[in-house]
């Protein structure tokens, strides 16, 4: 006989209200039914009462973890509509801050995953390392989480040469710390036992269901929107991180290796950052339609903006990566044990406030 067990919306492993109804037969999950809408705010409609500059602050608050990338993508849209050329230094700074966000997001996720295993000390270590990144964000941008450095046409703040040097130093320290926790993650018997072969998503499924980000790359699809070369990504060289197996372990490794990749990208950017203006002049109002894509820590983010030359934008549509990752999650869950549900759910790195906006 099937039993229905609710998972969430208030659940110890996840700070966010993800709600799944699990149809169980004994200990085995037969089906998972998601219920969304606990954090829906309807902020896309705020575009009708906030002008395009104020919207930067609103879209930053779609998600506190990757706020910088949201603002970056939104600004790219408006700049594309108005034909603004962003100064090169601003592009570099935006991407440095974006990569710092990616690092802190992945470390945060690593901590939560470790907590779900019951590895309390790993959780503490991951978050201790993350505080280094937060210190950099606080010192360079003035706030820890929502940094509001992007504005239409460029950035608000500059990084001094001292700060840039410090960023490099922190990147080195971060790499050392990661090397220290890597064996704990990769050699631990219980971590392998709970992740290898659990929650498998094949190449075909990932492709057909439209998975995004580390979820997609964990299944062997080498797709990374950063490769399209928006922002300063066109000036540096890197390759998408790909794993073949498609299980929770593969996704964990993708994110872990992306941490190293981010460190590398930050190094490349800091060492080649040009001098120059911080922001271009913005005149007039945007007109037309545009869609822009970028790579968030969780995957592909898309913004669609429609403007009619008015003070207010006509429409802002945000498609977030977790929204794309929920259907694959529902494919991965059936057949697993009840006890594995938190880990599989965490392995897609769900960000519910993004999903529901």
């Amino acid at each position, binding site marked *: 006989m099937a039993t229905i067990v609710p998972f969430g*919306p*208030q*659940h*110890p492993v996840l*700070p*966010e*209200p993800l709600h799944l*109804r699990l149809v169980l037969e004994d200990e085995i999950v037969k089906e998972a*039914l*998601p*219920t969304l*809408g*606990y*954090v*829906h*705010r*309807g*902020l896309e*409609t*705020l575009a009708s*009462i906030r002008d395009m500059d104020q919207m930067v*602050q*609103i879209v930053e*608050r*779609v*998600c*506190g*973890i990757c*706020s910088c990338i949201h603002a970056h993508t939104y600004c790219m849209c408006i700049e594309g509509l108005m034909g603004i050329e962003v100064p090169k230094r601003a592009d570099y700074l935006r991407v440095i801050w974006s990569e710092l966000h990616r690092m802190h997001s992945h470390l*945060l996720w690593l*901590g939560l995953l470790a907590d779900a295993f019951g590895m309390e000390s790993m*959780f*503490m270590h991951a*978050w*201790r390392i*993350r*505080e280094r990144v*937060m210190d950099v964000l606080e010192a360079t941008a003035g*706030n*820890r*989480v*929502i940094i509001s450095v992007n504005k239409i046409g460029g950035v608000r703040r500059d990084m001094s040469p001292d700060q840039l040097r410090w960023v490099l130093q922190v990147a080195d320290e971060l790499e050392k710390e990661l090397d220290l926790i890597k064996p704990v993650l990769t050699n631990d018997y219980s971590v392998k036992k709970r992740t290898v072969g659990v929650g498998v998503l094949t190449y075909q499924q990932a492709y057909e269901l439209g998975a995004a980000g580390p979820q997609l790359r964990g299944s062997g699809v080498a797709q990374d929107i950063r490769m399209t070369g928006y922002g300063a990504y066109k000036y540096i060289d890197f390759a998408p991180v790909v794993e073949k197996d498609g299980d929770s372990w593969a996704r964990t490794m993708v994110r872990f290796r992306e941490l190293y990749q981010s460190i590398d990208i930050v190094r490349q950017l800091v060492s080649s950052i040009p001098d120059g203006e911080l922001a271009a002049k913005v005149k007039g109002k945007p007109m037309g339609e545009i869609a822009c894509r970028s790579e968030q820590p969780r995957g592909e983010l898309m913004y669609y903006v429609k403007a009619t030359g008015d003070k207010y934008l006509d429409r802002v549509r945000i498609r977030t990566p977790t929204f794309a990752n929920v259907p694959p999650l529902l494919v991965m869950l059936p057949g697993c044990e009840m006890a594995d549900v938190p880990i599989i759910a965490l392995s897609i790195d769900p*960000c519910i*406030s993004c999903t*529901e906006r």
Partner: protein
Amino acid sequence: MGFFQELLHKSRMKSPWLIHFDCGSCNGCDIEVLACLTPVYDVERFGVLNIGNPKHADILVVSGTVNPRNAKVLKNIYDQMPEPKAVIAIGACGTSGGVFREAYNVLGGVDKVIPVDVYVPGCPSKPEAIIDGVVLALEKLKVRKPEKDTEPLVADLKKAREFYENREERQVTG
């Protein structure tokens, strides 16, 4: 108050247990609440523990705006907590709705649904401010003896409840 209750009350002041619930927050405040637990801020050295079960908790930490859907969940969690209890609203969102207060699905701050004792400002609130908020909430708990009756709830939940009760009809999946 009997001897045991006195003892319980004293120990509660020494080691308050928190439960964290995320209403419609943007995650900024959530991760700052979690950051309080980690080595840099480490509230556990003060005996503050984050737990998942409302029945064990003394202080409810809420971040984010309230909407008709999670109002019910929030109230449910609040009702399950034993007396005495305190509520902390985190961030601009928890206080008044913040940047989202004009959005169509936002009722406002946490105090629209349950009585709030401490408001922690900031967007997002800094971990230091959150820890300070917990200390202030403890002051309130101190004078709230266990015998005291529950305060009446100020919320107008009628609309929210109707919305929730019709949930089956609105649902597309399952």
